[in-house]
């Protein structure tokens, strides 16, 4: 009887182990997939000296690049280089020349805060698109400081303390970014640099000074590291776009994540036509 009991227990444990180590089935191949329509993608940025950079690329397939792709090769592959790029504002029209791989630019453009500007793009290969946006008022930090914070558990975080003044009687949306700017990081992180971003809407501090202290988590910093902290007064639609991006940062399991149709202010294309000037402060940790 005792032997039978031992046999049964042995049998059971063998069975349990076989259950634990049982094989995963080979994944199945995919025969065919729908393709995304090729569209022009617009990305813009004002440089504080009045220059405008317009990056024109095209959408590409999900299998044509990943986080690990060579960023320069990718930009070369997807850049739109045959476009006529026209910026139209209250002071007239500017045609922006091609500088290099999909990057068009113009300098000394007298942008007027609160005015609307139109962007027209015509590419023989990729089609025609347009976008309109308003130049947002530049808001600077009135106070800002960055220091290392030792949390007592072996981690050293960047702690930022800042204040800025919100413009009264207008609705504003703000974006604060913290980014490492060491040369090595810069090259390695050209694709998806993953800045630390905070978004603010001025619902609760309209027309007042806003102060906050935050720590950049979960990154570790060392003395000698350099970070850039920027404050941008952005449009509501770009705020919503960035909010969607941040909300989906925890999307860690692809097949159970929800699809996101990211919005765009480009008619006939993707991306964002933004005209805001960030206030950028650099800090070298001691």
């Amino acid at each position: 009887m005792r032997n039978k009991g031992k046999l049964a227990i042995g049998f059971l444990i063998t069975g349990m182990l076989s259950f634990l180590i049982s094989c995963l089935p080979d994944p199945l191949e995919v025969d065919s997939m729908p393709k995304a329509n090729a569209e022009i993608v617009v990305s813009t940025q004002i440089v504080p000296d009045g220059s405008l950079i317009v990056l024109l690329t095209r959408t590409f397939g999900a299998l044509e690049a990943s986080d690990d792709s060579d960023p320069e090769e990718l930009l070369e592959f997807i850049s739109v280089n045959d476009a006529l790029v026209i910026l139209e504002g209250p002071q007239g029209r500017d045609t922006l020349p091609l500088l290099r791989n999909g990057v068009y630019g113009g300098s000394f453009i007298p942008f007027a805060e609160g005015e609307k500007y139109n962007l027209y793009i015509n590419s023989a290969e990729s089609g025609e698109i347009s976008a309109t946006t308003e130049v947002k008022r530049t808001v600077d930090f009135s106070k800002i400081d960055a220091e290392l914070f030792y949390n007592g558990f072996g981690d050293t975080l960047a702690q930022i303390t800042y204040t800025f003044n919100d413009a009264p009687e207008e609705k504003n949306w703000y974006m604060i970014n913290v980014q490492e700017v060491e040369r090595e990081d810069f090259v390695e992180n050209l694709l998806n640099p993953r800045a630390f971003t905070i978004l603010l809407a001025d619902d609760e501090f309209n027309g007042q000074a806003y102060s906050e202290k935050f720590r950049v988590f979960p990154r570790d910093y060392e003395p000698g590291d350099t970070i850039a902290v920027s404050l941008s007064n952005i449009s509501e639609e770009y705020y919503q776009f960035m909010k969607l991006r941040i909300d989906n940062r925890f999307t860690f399991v692809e097949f159970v994540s929800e699809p996101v149709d990211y919005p765009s202010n480009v008619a006939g294309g993707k991306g964002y036509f933004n005209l805001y000037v960030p206030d950028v402060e650099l800090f070298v940790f001691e």
Partner: protein
Amino acid sequence: MVKILTFVLFFLNSLVLLAQQASLSGVVKNSGGEFLPLANVLILPDSTIATAGNDGSFTVYTRKGRKEVIITYTGLETVHRRINLQADTVLTFVMTTKVSELREVTVNANRYSSEDIVQSTRTGTTTLTQLDINGIPVLGGEADLIKTLQLLPGTVRGVEGSSDLFVRGGAADQNLVLLDGAPIYNTSHLFGFLSVFNPSILDNVEAINGGFPAEYGGRLSSVLNISTNADLAERTKASGDIGLIASRIYVEQPLVKNKASFWIAGRRTYIDQVVRAIGEELPYFFYDINGKLILQPSSRNKLEFSFYDGEDILDIFRDRNNDGDGFLTSYVSGNTSQSFRWAHSFKSEWKSSLSLTRSAYRYNISNSFEENTLVALSDIEDYSAKTIFRKEHEGMNTAFQFGADWIRHSISPSIINTTGTISELLESSASRGKLAHELALHMQKEFPLSQAWLVNAGFRMSAGLVNGKKYFVPEPRLSMRYALSKDQSLKLSYSRMAQYMHRISNSAVTTPTDVWYTVTDEIAPQTSHQIAAAWQRFITRQKIFISAETYYKTMRDLIGYEEGTNLFFNTDFESKLIQGSGRAYGLEFLARKETGRFTGWISYTLSWSRRHFEEINDGQWFPSRYDRRHNGAIVTQYSIGKRWAASIVWEFISGARFTPVVGQYVILAPTLTGVDLIPLYSGINQVKLADSHRLDAGIKFMSKTGKKFQWQWFAGVYNSYNRASPVGMIIEQNEDDNSLRYLQPGLFGLLPFISYGFKF
């Protein structure tokens, strides 16, 4: 007023019929002389249905003439007796144990077994007993109610191995799961892969997918009415099962002969202990405890008090640096329910039942690392009272029933509490708690229009009250049967349903951390209309039930959420909720053989399910996530001699719908230090995953019959040819040439299982 006149007309008509009738009284016993409560009685050709009382007796008034009396009782051979009824008659019926079920007899108190369903007005109804569930090889060898239901027509499963049910194009939260009348909000253990219902306690499971009787409401798509054993124990009995995932035990004990008894059952996984034995850590376990006290102070009163408590517990502490500052994660989720039921038979033909229930579900996730803590909580607690009064005029095949329901929902949907640096990423927040009430009044009458036509007409008026907002939804119900012959019928049903509770869940897979939420000022109750038509036949000689049923269902105010809403630790989901509509239609086929050496069923469903939300997919209709066109199963069990039984299950399901990443683009990162990759998705659920099919096989070896201690070994394999059942699509990089490709991974490959069961 019209309704009252209609009822009066039918009552008068019944009185006229009474004059041409004689009574047939009977007593139903087993071969040991014990009375058989709730035996089913069918009188042909009148198609009169009656149910024996608790003392095994029944009285039927029917037209004089030649009759065939058919008595059925699960686990016992059906009795057929032909009589010439010319005057009031009293008979005794003795039923013997089915040869094929000598080894395991379960008592089925449900009048709607497959054989009886043909003559009833029911559509979309299936019953399962413990015997059905225990004989089927499933994941890990753990007999599972939900996984057995997934093999029946009209029910589609979600992710492989999960306990989600998608019934007739509905969502996973549109199924009302009642355990002895108490709603169970989270029906799964093991993060969704095993249902919470201990198979040892099950007496009868009734799955209603359409043609809902008026007493049921609160969900759009199905009612899963799970009844645990409610028979008075005659002697001490115990049974148990030792499996790879969990073991379970069941003990029943009489307290006062024929008056009072109780049973208690427990189940626990010990995979944590096994893994510890080989030097590893898997700090997870689940357990269930069920119990029931049954009191029958008199033949007219029966009282039942049942309880359930079950939890999943995960407790991980990792301290890689051995400095005591490791990462601690604990996760606890659990259901608890208590229900009290009092069934009373009045001296007249009236019967009543009163149910009082409490049901709660909660989860608590706690993470701490160094100075950071993250605690997420959610809980829901229901109290309910339901009463039903029923009068049956068995001779005239009529029944009248009315009742009232009240449910109080108290929910704290989602509370997130963070401290330390992690609060920079995830701020403390809480959703508003809610107190809501659901009320319903219902009545229904079953009556014959002619010898062939039987009608069940009902009406349910439901209401949802929350924060001063009141919703009222009239829910008419109608089911009709036209008997083509004594064993063949056509049926038609219509149901309107309303749902006041919703589960806020990812569309792909439900998880224990999904949040249940009531209607609000902004969120209206979900409603549906469903019509179904069926042809059913019971082939008496071969004991085969055949059903072909078609349905069309429209749904309004379905719950969805804005594109891009992240539900993970999101307390602000209320502002993201949107409402839309849906429609589903399909054809279901079932051929089922319940007795004999060879038992099992073949099921097939052809179905469509689509959704429409103005805010999603550019306002265009799109397929629902589990819009699976074909869904079929072959389930067979074969007795080889007296001690061996083999079972095989083959399942085929069209691939689920999926929204893959089909493209991408880059935009300048906000810091100008690079570019961000933005994914581009296909249209919502535009892509169909590969079809799934799987063969499971098991073999059972049992002890000799007649011995007091009986045992059985059950061994087999799940997914015997190791084919993946895709759960989604991923993009994988080839390590050799860095090229990318789409793949469809599955979760479970070939899994052997073995279990040992006993009873004495």
